[in-house]
Protein backbone atom coordinates (compact mmCIF):
# COMPACT_ATOMS: atom_id res chain seq x y z
CA UNK A 1 0.00 0.00 0.00
CA UNK A 2 1.28 3.45 -0.94
CA UNK A 3 0.01 6.87 0.09
CA UNK A 4 0.75 9.87 -2.14
CA UNK A 5 0.04 13.41 -1.04
CA UNK A 6 -1.42 15.94 -3.49
CA UNK A 7 -3.37 19.16 -3.58
CA UNK A 8 -7.16 19.06 -3.71
CA UNK A 9 -8.55 20.82 -6.79
CA UNK A 10 -12.12 19.51 -6.41
CA UNK A 11 -13.50 18.11 -3.12
CA UNK A 12 -14.89 14.68 -2.35
CA UNK A 13 -13.86 11.02 -2.12
CA UNK A 14 -13.78 8.40 -4.86
CA UNK A 15 -12.55 4.84 -5.27
CA UNK A 16 -12.13 2.65 -8.28
CA UNK A 17 -9.95 1.15 -10.95
CA UNK A 18 -6.85 3.19 -11.69
CA UNK A 19 -6.63 4.13 -15.36
CA UNK A 20 -3.49 5.81 -16.62
CA UNK A 21 -3.89 7.85 -19.76
CA UNK A 22 -0.98 7.50 -22.12
CA UNK A 23 -0.08 9.94 -24.85
CA UNK A 24 -1.76 9.02 -28.13
CA UNK A 25 0.39 7.28 -30.69
CA UNK A 26 -0.41 8.26 -34.21
CA UNK A 27 0.19 6.35 -37.38
CA UNK A 28 2.11 8.11 -40.12
CA UNK A 29 0.19 10.41 -42.40
CA UNK A 30 0.86 10.72 -46.12
CA UNK A 31 1.98 14.25 -46.95
CA UNK A 32 0.89 16.16 -50.06
CA UNK A 33 1.67 19.37 -51.86
CA UNK A 34 1.44 22.65 -49.90
CA UNK A 35 -2.04 23.16 -51.37
CA UNK A 36 -3.13 19.70 -50.25
CA UNK A 37 -1.62 20.18 -46.79
CA UNK A 38 -3.40 23.50 -46.45
CA UNK A 39 -6.70 21.94 -47.47
CA UNK A 40 -6.16 19.04 -45.02
CA UNK A 41 -5.61 21.48 -42.17
CA UNK A 42 -8.66 23.55 -43.15
CA UNK A 43 -10.81 20.40 -43.11
CA UNK A 44 -9.36 19.28 -39.77
CA UNK A 45 -9.97 22.69 -38.17
CA UNK A 46 -13.57 22.69 -39.40
CA UNK A 47 -14.11 19.12 -38.14
CA UNK A 48 -12.64 20.02 -34.74
CA UNK A 49 -14.89 23.06 -34.56
CA UNK A 50 -17.97 20.98 -35.36
CA UNK A 51 -16.99 18.38 -32.76
CA UNK A 52 -16.61 21.11 -30.13
CA UNK A 53 -19.97 22.62 -31.09
CA UNK A 54 -21.62 19.20 -30.73
CA UNK A 55 -19.95 18.75 -27.35
CA UNK A 56 -21.19 22.19 -26.27
CA UNK A 57 -24.71 21.19 -27.21
CA UNK A 58 -24.52 18.02 -25.10
CA UNK A 59 -23.08 19.99 -22.16
CA UNK A 60 -25.27 22.99 -21.46
CA UNK A 61 -24.53 24.96 -18.33
CA UNK A 62 -22.48 28.02 -17.63
CA UNK A 63 -19.06 26.42 -16.96
CA UNK A 64 -18.90 23.90 -19.77
CA UNK A 65 -20.36 26.10 -22.49
CA UNK A 66 -18.11 29.01 -21.49
CA UNK A 67 -14.96 26.88 -21.75
CA UNK A 68 -16.00 25.37 -25.06
CA UNK A 69 -17.03 28.76 -26.47
CA UNK A 70 -13.44 29.94 -25.94
CA UNK A 71 -12.03 27.02 -27.92
CA UNK A 72 -14.63 27.32 -30.66
CA UNK A 73 -13.85 31.03 -30.98
CA UNK A 74 -10.12 30.25 -31.31
CA UNK A 75 -10.88 27.95 -34.27
CA UNK A 76 -13.49 30.27 -35.72
CA UNK A 77 -11.05 33.03 -36.50
CA UNK A 78 -8.17 32.95 -38.93
CA UNK A 79 -5.35 33.91 -36.56
CA UNK A 80 -3.98 30.52 -35.47
CA UNK A 81 -4.66 28.63 -38.75
CA UNK A 82 -3.11 31.66 -40.54
CA UNK A 83 0.20 31.13 -38.74
CA UNK A 84 0.10 27.47 -39.71
CA UNK A 85 -0.74 28.24 -43.35
CA UNK A 86 2.36 30.41 -43.58
CA UNK A 87 4.50 27.51 -42.40
CA UNK A 88 2.78 25.18 -44.87
CA UNK A 89 3.47 27.62 -47.71
CA UNK A 90 7.15 27.33 -46.77
CA UNK A 91 6.96 23.55 -47.21
CA UNK A 92 5.87 22.37 -43.75
CA UNK A 93 3.43 19.52 -43.20
CA UNK A 94 -0.06 20.29 -41.88
CA UNK A 95 0.59 18.62 -38.51
CA UNK A 96 3.99 20.22 -37.94
CA UNK A 97 2.67 23.65 -38.92
CA UNK A 98 -0.35 23.38 -36.62
CA UNK A 99 1.73 22.04 -33.72
CA UNK A 100 4.28 24.85 -34.09
CA UNK A 101 1.59 27.55 -34.26
CA UNK A 102 -0.06 26.25 -31.09
CA UNK A 103 3.22 25.53 -29.31
CA UNK A 104 4.30 29.18 -29.56
CA UNK A 105 0.99 30.25 -28.04
CA UNK A 106 1.15 27.60 -25.29
CA UNK A 107 4.68 28.60 -24.27
CA UNK A 108 3.54 32.20 -24.11
CA UNK A 109 0.63 31.30 -21.80
CA UNK A 110 2.85 29.14 -19.63
CA UNK A 111 5.28 32.00 -19.06
CA UNK A 112 2.57 34.35 -17.77
CA UNK A 113 2.97 35.67 -14.24
CA UNK A 114 -0.79 35.30 -13.69
CA UNK A 115 -1.84 31.79 -12.57
CA UNK A 116 -5.12 32.18 -14.45
CA UNK A 117 -3.40 32.69 -17.80
CA UNK A 118 -0.87 29.92 -17.11
CA UNK A 119 -3.78 27.56 -16.56
CA UNK A 120 -5.17 28.42 -20.01
CA UNK A 121 -2.22 26.61 -21.61
CA UNK A 122 -4.12 23.36 -21.07
CA UNK A 123 -7.06 24.69 -23.14
CA UNK A 124 -4.67 25.28 -26.01
CA UNK A 125 -3.14 21.82 -25.65
CA UNK A 126 -6.67 20.46 -25.79
CA UNK A 127 -7.30 22.39 -28.98
CA UNK A 128 -4.01 21.25 -30.52
CA UNK A 129 -4.85 17.59 -29.87
CA UNK A 130 -8.38 17.89 -31.17
CA UNK A 131 -7.26 19.26 -34.52
CA UNK A 132 -4.47 16.68 -34.79
CA UNK A 133 -7.02 13.99 -34.04
CA UNK A 134 -9.15 15.21 -36.94
CA UNK A 135 -6.07 15.39 -39.16
CA UNK A 136 -4.95 11.82 -38.43
CA UNK A 137 -8.44 10.41 -38.14
CA UNK A 138 -7.48 8.64 -34.89
CA UNK A 139 -8.06 9.82 -31.39
CA UNK A 140 -8.00 9.05 -27.73
CA UNK A 141 -9.48 5.87 -26.38
CA UNK A 142 -12.64 6.67 -24.44
CA UNK A 143 -12.17 6.74 -20.66
CA UNK A 144 -14.06 3.90 -18.90
CA UNK A 145 -16.90 5.02 -16.63
CA UNK A 146 -16.26 5.42 -12.91
CA UNK A 147 -12.47 5.12 -13.10
CA UNK A 148 -9.80 7.00 -11.15
CA UNK A 149 -8.06 8.63 -14.07
CA UNK A 150 -4.38 9.49 -13.74
CA UNK A 151 -2.62 11.65 -16.31
CA UNK A 152 -0.17 14.43 -16.83
CA UNK A 153 -3.02 16.79 -17.60
CA UNK A 154 -6.60 16.31 -18.73
CA UNK A 155 -8.21 18.30 -21.51
CA UNK A 156 -11.50 20.02 -20.65
CA UNK A 157 -13.18 18.61 -23.76
CA UNK A 158 -12.08 15.11 -22.80
CA UNK A 159 -13.48 15.64 -19.31
CA UNK A 160 -16.82 16.57 -20.85
CA UNK A 161 -16.85 13.49 -23.07
CA UNK A 162 -16.43 11.13 -20.10
CA UNK A 163 -18.98 9.45 -17.84
CA UNK A 164 -17.51 10.10 -14.39
CA UNK A 165 -20.10 8.21 -12.35
CA UNK A 166 -18.27 7.90 -9.02
CA UNK A 167 -14.79 8.28 -10.50
CA UNK A 168 -12.07 10.80 -9.83
CA UNK A 169 -9.08 12.57 -11.35
CA UNK A 170 -5.39 12.58 -10.41
CA UNK A 171 -3.07 14.88 -12.33
CA UNK A 172 0.62 15.60 -12.23
CA UNK A 173 0.17 19.07 -13.64
CA UNK A 174 -2.77 21.44 -13.40
CA UNK A 175 -4.08 23.58 -10.60
CA UNK A 176 -7.30 24.53 -8.87
CA UNK A 177 -7.76 27.34 -11.40
CA UNK A 178 -7.52 25.12 -14.48
CA UNK A 179 -10.67 24.67 -16.54
CA UNK A 180 -10.79 20.96 -15.82
CA UNK A 181 -10.73 21.74 -12.08
CA UNK A 182 -13.60 24.21 -12.48
CA UNK A 183 -15.55 21.56 -14.36
CA UNK A 184 -14.69 18.87 -11.80
CA UNK A 185 -15.98 21.07 -8.98
CA UNK A 186 -19.18 21.90 -10.82
CA UNK A 187 -19.83 18.20 -11.60
CA UNK A 188 -18.77 16.92 -8.18
CA UNK A 189 -15.83 14.85 -9.45
CA UNK A 190 -13.07 14.65 -6.79
CA UNK A 191 -9.69 15.75 -8.15
CA UNK A 192 -6.10 15.95 -6.91
CA UNK A 193 -3.22 17.74 -8.61
CA UNK A 194 0.53 17.60 -7.98
CA UNK A 195 0.65 13.80 -7.81
CA UNK A 196 3.73 12.15 -9.25
CA UNK A 197 1.89 9.97 -11.77
CA UNK A 198 5.07 8.07 -12.67
CA UNK A 199 4.76 6.35 -9.28
CA UNK A 200 1.39 4.89 -10.23
CA UNK A 201 2.92 2.25 -12.53
CA UNK A 202 1.81 -1.25 -11.74
CA UNK A 203 -1.00 -0.29 -9.38
CA UNK A 204 -4.57 -1.30 -10.13
CA UNK A 205 -6.85 0.20 -7.57
CA UNK A 206 -6.93 3.56 -5.87
CA UNK A 207 -8.75 5.45 -3.15
CA UNK A 208 -8.85 9.18 -3.76
CA UNK A 209 -9.53 11.43 -0.78
CA UNK A 210 -9.57 15.07 -1.86
CA UNK A 211 -10.70 16.09 1.63
CA UNK A 212 -7.39 14.90 3.06
CA UNK A 213 -5.42 15.44 -0.14
CA UNK A 214 -4.20 11.81 -0.45
CA UNK A 215 -4.23 9.04 -3.01
CA UNK A 216 -3.99 5.51 -1.62
CA UNK A 217 -2.77 2.81 -4.00
CA UNK A 218 -3.66 -0.87 -3.65
CA UNK A 219 -5.24 -0.41 -0.20
CA UNK A 220 -5.42 -3.20 2.35
CA UNK A 221 -8.67 -4.18 4.07
CA UNK A 222 -8.11 -1.86 7.04
CA UNK A 223 -7.37 1.10 4.81
CA UNK A 224 -10.39 0.32 2.71
CA UNK A 225 -12.81 0.23 5.64
CA UNK A 226 -11.30 3.41 7.07
CA UNK A 227 -11.83 5.08 3.69
CA UNK A 228 -15.44 3.92 3.55
CA UNK A 229 -16.01 5.37 6.99
CA UNK A 230 -14.61 8.74 5.85
CA UNK A 231 -16.65 8.64 2.67
CA UNK A 232 -19.86 7.94 4.61
CA UNK A 233 -19.08 10.74 7.08
CA UNK A 234 -18.39 13.14 4.22
CA UNK A 235 -21.62 12.21 2.45
CA UNK A 236 -23.60 12.59 5.67
CA UNK A 237 -22.07 16.00 6.30
CA UNK A 238 -22.84 17.18 2.78
CA UNK A 239 -26.40 15.93 3.04
CA UNK A 240 -26.85 17.63 6.39
CA UNK A 241 -25.41 20.90 5.10
CA UNK A 242 -27.47 20.80 1.91
CA UNK A 243 -30.61 20.56 4.03
CA UNK A 244 -29.57 23.67 5.94
CA UNK A 245 -28.37 25.82 3.06
CA UNK A 246 -31.79 27.18 2.07
CA UNK A 247 -33.22 27.22 5.60
CA UNK A 248 -33.16 29.96 8.20
CA UNK A 249 -30.57 29.16 10.85
CA UNK A 250 -32.28 28.07 14.06
CA UNK A 251 -30.68 26.55 17.15
CA UNK A 252 -31.77 23.18 18.54
CA UNK A 253 -33.77 25.19 21.09
CA UNK A 254 -35.62 27.02 18.34
CA UNK A 255 -33.83 30.35 18.57
CA UNK A 256 -33.30 32.20 15.29
CA UNK A 257 -29.70 33.11 14.41
CA UNK A 258 -28.99 35.32 11.46
CA UNK A 259 -26.29 34.17 9.03
CA UNK A 260 -25.00 36.94 6.76
CA UNK A 261 -22.09 36.93 4.32
CA UNK A 262 -18.76 38.71 4.01
CA UNK A 263 -17.81 39.86 0.53
CA UNK A 264 -14.83 41.66 -0.97
CA UNK A 265 -16.91 43.23 -3.73
CA UNK A 266 -19.96 42.68 -5.97
CA UNK A 267 -18.09 39.93 -7.90
CA UNK A 268 -18.37 37.60 -4.90
CA UNK A 269 -22.15 37.54 -5.20
CA UNK A 270 -22.32 35.76 -8.57
CA UNK A 271 -22.55 32.29 -7.03
CA UNK A 272 -24.67 33.15 -3.97
CA UNK A 273 -28.45 32.98 -3.74
CA UNK A 274 -29.60 35.92 -1.57
CA UNK A 275 -32.39 33.72 -0.17
CA UNK A 276 -29.72 31.54 1.48
CA UNK A 277 -28.51 34.52 3.53
CA UNK A 278 -29.87 37.07 5.95
CA UNK A 279 -28.04 39.77 4.03
CA UNK A 280 -24.48 41.06 3.74
CA UNK A 281 -22.79 41.51 7.12
CA UNK A 282 -19.59 42.95 5.72
CA UNK A 283 -18.84 44.33 2.30
CA UNK A 284 -15.26 45.51 2.02
CA UNK A 285 -14.59 48.50 -0.23
CA UNK A 286 -10.82 48.22 -0.66
CA UNK A 287 -11.32 46.45 -4.01
CA UNK A 288 -12.21 49.75 -5.66
CA UNK A 289 -9.08 51.51 -4.46
CA UNK A 290 -6.44 48.94 -5.42
CA UNK A 291 -4.11 49.07 -8.38
CA UNK A 292 -5.38 52.21 -10.05
CA UNK A 293 -4.10 55.59 -10.97
CA UNK A 294 -6.84 57.65 -9.39
CA UNK A 295 -9.28 57.05 -6.55
CA UNK A 296 -12.77 55.88 -7.54
CA UNK A 297 -15.32 58.66 -8.00
CA UNK A 298 -18.70 59.01 -6.31
CA UNK A 299 -20.60 57.68 -9.33
CA UNK A 300 -18.52 54.51 -9.67
CA UNK A 301 -18.79 53.79 -5.94
CA UNK A 302 -22.52 54.50 -5.92
CA UNK A 303 -23.11 52.01 -8.71
CA UNK A 304 -21.06 49.28 -7.00
CA UNK A 305 -22.90 49.76 -3.67
CA UNK A 306 -26.29 49.90 -5.32
CA UNK A 307 -25.63 46.62 -7.16
CA UNK A 308 -25.07 44.86 -3.83
CA UNK A 309 -28.13 46.44 -2.23
CA UNK A 310 -30.26 45.38 -5.19
CA UNK A 311 -28.82 41.87 -5.07
CA UNK A 312 -29.85 41.55 -1.41
CA UNK A 313 -33.53 42.22 -2.19
CA UNK A 314 -34.45 44.14 0.97
CA UNK A 315 -32.09 42.21 3.23
CA UNK A 316 -29.67 44.43 5.16
CA UNK A 317 -26.28 45.21 3.60
CA UNK A 318 -23.49 46.53 5.83
CA UNK A 319 -20.74 48.30 3.91
CA UNK A 320 -17.46 49.14 5.58
CA UNK A 321 -15.76 52.43 4.81
CA UNK A 322 -12.28 52.14 3.33
CA UNK A 323 -10.03 50.03 5.57
CA UNK A 324 -6.71 50.80 3.92
CA UNK A 325 -3.37 50.49 5.69
CA UNK A 326 -2.15 47.56 7.78
CA UNK A 327 -1.74 44.72 5.29
CA UNK A 328 -3.79 46.59 2.67
CA UNK A 329 -1.77 49.55 1.37
CA UNK A 330 -3.26 51.86 -1.26
CA UNK A 331 -0.63 53.77 -3.24
CA UNK A 332 -1.07 57.52 -2.96
CA UNK A 333 -3.31 57.17 0.09
CA UNK A 334 -1.70 55.12 2.82
CA UNK A 335 1.57 56.19 4.44
CA UNK A 336 4.69 54.51 3.19
CA UNK A 337 7.48 53.19 5.35
CA UNK A 338 5.52 52.72 8.55
CA UNK A 339 7.59 50.44 10.78
CA UNK A 340 4.49 48.74 12.16
CA UNK A 341 1.58 49.32 9.79
CA UNK A 342 -0.91 47.22 11.81
CA UNK A 343 -0.49 49.74 14.62
CA UNK A 344 -0.25 52.68 12.24
CA UNK A 345 -2.41 55.00 10.19
CA UNK A 346 -5.06 52.56 8.99
CA UNK A 347 -8.85 52.33 8.79
CA UNK A 348 -10.69 55.32 10.26
CA UNK A 349 -7.39 56.90 11.31
CA UNK A 350 -6.53 57.30 7.65
CA UNK A 351 -10.08 58.28 6.61
CA UNK A 352 -10.15 61.13 9.14
CA UNK A 353 -6.83 62.41 7.79
CA UNK A 354 -8.34 62.40 4.28
CA UNK A 355 -11.91 63.64 4.93
CA UNK A 356 -12.36 64.51 1.24
CA UNK A 357 -11.88 60.81 0.32
CA UNK A 358 -14.22 59.66 3.09
CA UNK A 359 -16.75 62.33 2.04
CA UNK A 360 -16.98 60.91 -1.50
CA UNK A 361 -17.55 57.46 -0.06
CA UNK A 362 -20.20 58.61 2.42
CA UNK A 363 -22.09 60.46 -0.32
CA UNK A 364 -22.05 57.40 -2.57
CA UNK A 365 -23.27 55.25 0.35
CA UNK A 366 -26.06 57.69 1.28
CA UNK A 367 -27.26 57.66 -2.33
CA UNK A 368 -27.17 53.86 -2.57
CA UNK A 369 -29.19 53.65 0.68
CA UNK A 370 -32.22 54.82 -1.29
CA UNK A 371 -32.26 51.40 -2.99
CA UNK A 372 -32.61 49.37 0.24
CA UNK A 373 -31.54 48.82 3.86
CA UNK A 374 -27.88 49.83 3.68
CA UNK A 375 -25.77 50.35 6.80
CA UNK A 376 -22.33 51.89 7.14
CA UNK A 377 -19.59 50.47 9.35
CA UNK A 378 -16.42 52.27 10.41
CA UNK A 379 -13.25 50.18 10.90
CA UNK A 380 -10.50 50.52 13.54
CA UNK A 381 -12.35 52.92 15.85
CA UNK A 382 -10.26 53.56 18.98
CA UNK A 383 -11.90 56.59 20.65
CA UNK A 384 -15.51 57.88 20.88
CA UNK A 385 -14.31 61.12 19.32
CA UNK A 386 -13.25 59.37 16.09
CA UNK A 387 -16.69 57.85 15.79
CA UNK A 388 -18.43 61.16 16.52
CA UNK A 389 -16.42 62.85 13.78
CA UNK A 390 -17.48 60.17 11.28
CA UNK A 391 -21.08 60.71 12.25
CA UNK A 392 -20.69 64.46 11.71
CA UNK A 393 -19.19 63.84 8.26
CA UNK A 394 -22.10 61.54 7.37
CA UNK A 395 -24.65 64.16 8.48
CA UNK A 396 -22.78 66.71 6.39
CA UNK A 397 -22.67 64.43 3.32
CA UNK A 398 -26.42 63.76 3.54
CA UNK A 399 -27.13 67.49 3.91
CA UNK A 400 -24.95 68.28 0.87
CA UNK A 401 -26.90 65.80 -1.27
CA UNK A 402 -30.17 67.08 0.07
CA UNK A 403 -29.24 70.68 -0.78
CA UNK A 404 -28.54 69.61 -4.36
CA UNK A 405 -31.81 67.72 -4.57
CA UNK A 406 -30.03 64.36 -5.09
CA UNK A 407 -32.05 61.45 -3.65
CA UNK A 408 -30.27 60.08 -0.57
CA UNK A 409 -30.88 58.67 2.88
CA UNK A 410 -28.77 58.82 6.01
CA UNK A 411 -27.98 55.15 6.78
CA UNK A 412 -27.39 53.78 10.29
CA UNK A 413 -23.73 54.18 11.29
CA UNK A 414 -22.05 51.38 13.22
CA UNK A 415 -18.54 50.57 14.35
CA UNK A 416 -16.30 47.61 13.83
CA UNK A 417 -15.07 46.48 17.22
CA UNK A 418 -11.48 45.36 16.81
CA UNK A 419 -9.35 47.60 19.02
CA UNK A 420 -9.19 46.15 22.55
CA UNK A 421 -9.57 49.47 24.37
CA UNK A 422 -12.78 50.18 22.45
CA UNK A 423 -14.07 46.65 23.10
CA UNK A 424 -13.40 47.04 26.83
CA UNK A 425 -15.47 50.21 27.12
CA UNK A 426 -18.02 49.63 24.40
CA UNK A 427 -20.67 51.65 26.24
CA UNK A 428 -18.72 54.85 25.50
CA UNK A 429 -19.39 54.48 21.77
CA UNK A 430 -22.69 55.83 20.51
CA UNK A 431 -22.86 53.57 17.45
CA UNK A 432 -26.12 52.36 15.87
CA UNK A 433 -24.74 48.80 15.79
CA UNK A 434 -21.54 46.89 16.59
CA UNK A 435 -19.72 44.37 14.46
CA UNK A 436 -16.90 42.45 16.08
CA UNK A 437 -13.84 42.09 13.84
CA UNK A 438 -12.37 39.03 15.50
CA UNK A 439 -9.26 38.74 13.30
CA UNK A 440 -7.76 42.03 14.40
CA UNK A 441 -9.26 41.88 17.88
CA UNK A 442 -7.45 38.57 18.52
CA UNK A 443 -4.19 39.80 17.02
CA UNK A 444 -4.24 42.92 19.21
CA UNK A 445 -5.45 41.10 22.35
CA UNK A 446 -2.87 38.33 22.12
CA UNK A 447 -0.11 40.53 20.66
CA UNK A 448 0.37 37.93 17.91
CA UNK A 449 0.70 38.99 14.30
CA UNK A 450 -1.87 37.42 12.01
CA UNK A 451 0.81 36.32 9.57
CA UNK A 452 3.23 34.77 12.08
CA UNK A 453 2.79 31.12 11.11
CA UNK A 454 5.12 30.04 13.88
CA UNK A 455 2.88 31.65 16.51
CA UNK A 456 -0.39 30.22 15.17
CA UNK A 457 -0.99 28.38 18.45
CA UNK A 458 -0.64 31.60 20.44
CA UNK A 459 -3.05 33.43 18.13
CA UNK A 460 -6.08 31.31 19.04
CA UNK A 461 -9.22 32.66 20.70
CA UNK A 462 -8.77 32.92 24.46
CA UNK A 463 -11.16 33.01 27.41
CA UNK A 464 -10.36 36.73 27.50
CA UNK A 465 -11.82 37.06 24.00
CA UNK A 466 -15.02 35.21 24.95
CA UNK A 467 -15.35 37.48 27.97
CA UNK A 468 -15.09 40.61 25.80
CA UNK A 469 -17.56 39.30 23.22
CA UNK A 470 -19.99 38.40 26.01
CA UNK A 471 -19.76 41.95 27.44
CA UNK A 472 -20.35 43.53 24.02
CA UNK A 473 -23.39 41.32 23.41
CA UNK A 474 -24.69 42.17 26.89
CA UNK A 475 -24.35 45.90 26.16
CA UNK A 476 -26.08 45.41 22.79
CA UNK A 477 -29.00 43.63 24.44
CA UNK A 478 -29.39 46.28 27.16
CA UNK A 479 -29.31 49.19 24.72
CA UNK A 480 -31.15 47.39 21.88
CA UNK A 481 -28.25 47.67 19.50
CA UNK A 482 -27.46 44.86 17.11
CA UNK A 483 -24.19 42.94 17.57
CA UNK A 484 -22.66 40.86 14.75
CA UNK A 485 -19.36 39.04 14.40
CA UNK A 486 -17.74 39.21 10.98
CA UNK A 487 -14.24 37.75 11.48
CA UNK A 488 -12.95 34.36 10.30
CA UNK A 489 -14.12 32.86 13.59
CA UNK A 490 -17.77 33.08 12.47
CA UNK A 491 -17.05 30.89 9.42
CA UNK A 492 -15.59 28.08 11.54
CA UNK A 493 -18.36 25.63 12.49
CA UNK A 494 -16.26 24.50 15.48
CA UNK A 495 -16.34 28.03 16.92
CA UNK A 496 -20.12 28.42 16.51
CA UNK A 497 -21.07 26.86 19.91
CA UNK A 498 -18.78 29.26 21.80
CA UNK A 499 -20.02 32.29 19.84
CA UNK A 500 -23.66 31.44 20.50
CA UNK A 501 -22.79 30.82 24.14
CA UNK A 502 -21.40 34.39 24.32
CA UNK A 503 -24.79 35.69 23.23
CA UNK A 504 -24.15 36.35 19.54
CA UNK A 505 -27.21 35.84 17.33
CA UNK A 506 -25.82 37.21 14.08
CA UNK A 507 -22.78 35.75 12.29
CA UNK A 508 -21.30 37.04 9.07
CA UNK A 509 -19.43 34.30 7.22
CA UNK A 510 -17.63 33.61 3.95
CA UNK A 511 -20.19 32.48 1.32
CA UNK A 512 -18.76 28.95 1.14
CA UNK A 513 -19.48 28.48 4.87
CA UNK A 514 -23.20 29.39 4.86
CA UNK A 515 -24.43 25.78 4.95
CA UNK A 516 -21.84 24.45 7.42
CA UNK A 517 -22.40 27.35 9.85
CA UNK A 518 -26.19 26.97 9.65
CA UNK A 519 -25.78 23.23 10.32
CA UNK A 520 -23.56 23.99 13.34
CA UNK A 521 -26.16 26.45 14.66
CA UNK A 522 -28.89 23.82 14.33
CA UNK A 523 -26.89 21.33 16.46
CA UNK A 524 -26.53 23.81 19.32
CA UNK A 525 -28.82 24.21 22.33
CA UNK A 526 -29.25 27.80 23.50
CA UNK A 527 -30.96 29.26 26.50
CA UNK A 528 -33.29 31.96 25.26
Amino acid at each position, binding site marked *: MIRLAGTAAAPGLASGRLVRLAAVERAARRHGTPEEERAALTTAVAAARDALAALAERNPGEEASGIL*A*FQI*ELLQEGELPGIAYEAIAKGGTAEAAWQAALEAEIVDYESST*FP*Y*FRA*RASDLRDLRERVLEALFGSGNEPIPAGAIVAADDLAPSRFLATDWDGGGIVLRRGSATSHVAILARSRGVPMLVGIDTARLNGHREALLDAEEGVLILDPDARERSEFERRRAAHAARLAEEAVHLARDATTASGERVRVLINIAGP*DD*LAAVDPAHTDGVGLMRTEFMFHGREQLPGEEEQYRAYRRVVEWAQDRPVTIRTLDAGGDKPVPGLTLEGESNPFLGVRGVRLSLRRPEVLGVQLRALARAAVAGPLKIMVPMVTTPDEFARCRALLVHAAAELDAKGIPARRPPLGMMVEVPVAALEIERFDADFYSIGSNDLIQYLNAVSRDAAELAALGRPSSGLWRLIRAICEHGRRTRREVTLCGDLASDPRAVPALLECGLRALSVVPSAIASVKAAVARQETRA
Partner: protein
Amino acid sequence: MTQRANGSVVVRHEVGMHARPSVKLTQLAKSFAAKIDLGASADGPWIDAKSIVKVMRTRTPKDAVLHIRAEGADATSAVRALIELIERDFELET
Protein backbone atom coordinates in the same frame (compact mmCIF):
# COMPACT_ATOMS: atom_id res chain seq x y z
CA MET B 1 -19.33 58.75 -43.37
CA THR B 2 -16.24 57.53 -41.60
CA GLN B 3 -16.19 58.20 -37.89
CA ARG B 4 -13.34 57.95 -35.44
CA ALA B 5 -14.00 57.32 -31.78
CA ASN B 6 -12.04 56.34 -28.72
CA GLY B 7 -12.48 55.75 -25.04
CA SER B 8 -11.06 53.93 -22.04
CA VAL B 9 -12.40 51.72 -19.28
CA VAL B 10 -11.11 49.94 -16.18
CA VAL B 11 -11.36 46.14 -16.29
CA ARG B 12 -12.96 45.16 -13.00
CA HIS B 13 -13.37 41.44 -13.54
CA GLU B 14 -11.59 39.38 -10.90
CA VAL B 15 -9.11 37.74 -13.28
CA GLY B 16 -9.05 40.45 -15.91
CA MET B 17 -9.70 39.74 -19.58
CA HIS B 18 -9.92 35.99 -19.25
CA ALA B 19 -11.42 33.46 -21.62
CA ARG B 20 -15.14 34.03 -21.30
CA PRO B 21 -15.06 37.84 -21.18
CA SER B 22 -12.69 37.82 -24.16
CA VAL B 23 -15.13 35.68 -26.14
CA LYS B 24 -17.95 38.10 -25.36
CA LEU B 25 -15.83 41.09 -26.24
CA THR B 26 -14.64 39.77 -29.60
CA GLN B 27 -18.12 38.59 -30.52
CA LEU B 28 -19.53 42.03 -29.76
CA ALA B 29 -16.69 43.72 -31.66
CA LYS B 30 -17.39 41.55 -34.69
CA SER B 31 -20.99 42.77 -34.75
CA PHE B 32 -19.71 46.20 -35.84
CA ALA B 33 -18.39 47.15 -39.25
CA ALA B 34 -15.79 49.53 -37.83
CA LYS B 35 -12.18 48.53 -37.39
CA ILE B 36 -11.76 48.31 -33.60
CA ASP B 37 -8.48 48.23 -31.71
CA LEU B 38 -7.54 47.73 -28.07
CA GLY B 39 -4.47 49.15 -26.37
CA ALA B 40 -2.92 49.15 -22.91
CA SER B 41 -2.14 52.86 -23.31
CA ALA B 42 -3.68 55.76 -25.22
CA ASP B 43 -0.75 55.64 -27.68
CA GLY B 44 -0.97 51.94 -28.38
CA PRO B 45 0.46 49.51 -29.34
CA TRP B 46 -2.92 48.51 -30.72
CA ILE B 47 -4.34 45.05 -31.34
CA ASP B 48 -7.41 43.89 -33.25
CA ALA B 49 -10.41 43.70 -30.88
CA LYS B 50 -12.04 41.13 -33.16
CA SER B 51 -9.34 38.50 -32.61
CA ILE B 52 -9.66 36.29 -29.50
CA VAL B 53 -6.05 35.14 -29.89
CA LYS B 54 -4.81 38.73 -29.82
CA VAL B 55 -7.14 39.89 -27.06
CA MET B 56 -6.01 37.01 -24.83
CA ARG B 57 -2.37 37.75 -25.67
CA THR B 58 -2.69 41.17 -24.00
CA ARG B 59 -3.07 39.38 -20.63
CA THR B 60 -5.02 42.36 -19.37
CA PRO B 61 -5.18 41.95 -15.58
CA LYS B 62 -7.87 43.13 -13.16
CA ASP B 63 -7.90 46.91 -12.62
CA ALA B 64 -5.95 47.62 -15.82
CA VAL B 65 -7.13 50.46 -18.00
CA LEU B 66 -8.11 49.30 -21.49
CA HIS B 67 -8.09 51.86 -24.31
CA ILE B 68 -10.44 51.40 -27.24
CA ARG B 69 -10.35 53.12 -30.61
CA ALA B 70 -12.50 52.58 -33.66
CA GLU B 71 -12.72 53.77 -37.20
CA GLY B 72 -15.66 53.26 -39.56
CA ALA B 73 -19.31 54.11 -40.07
CA ASP B 74 -20.42 52.82 -36.66
CA ALA B 75 -17.24 53.67 -34.71
CA THR B 76 -18.99 55.75 -32.04
CA SER B 77 -21.58 53.15 -31.13
CA ALA B 78 -18.94 50.39 -31.26
CA VAL B 79 -16.76 52.12 -28.65
CA ARG B 80 -19.80 52.88 -26.51
CA ALA B 81 -21.04 49.27 -26.66
CA LEU B 82 -17.63 47.78 -25.77
CA ILE B 83 -17.17 50.13 -22.82
CA GLU B 84 -20.64 49.28 -21.60
CA LEU B 85 -19.94 45.56 -21.84
CA ILE B 86 -16.77 45.88 -19.78
CA GLU B 87 -18.46 48.20 -17.26
CA ARG B 88 -21.30 45.71 -16.86
CA ASP B 89 -18.58 43.20 -16.04
CA PHE B 90 -19.37 41.21 -19.19
CA GLU B 91 -22.83 40.47 -17.83
CA LEU B 92 -21.30 37.59 -15.93
CA GLU B 93 -23.57 38.37 -13.02
CA THR B 94 -27.27 38.66 -13.33
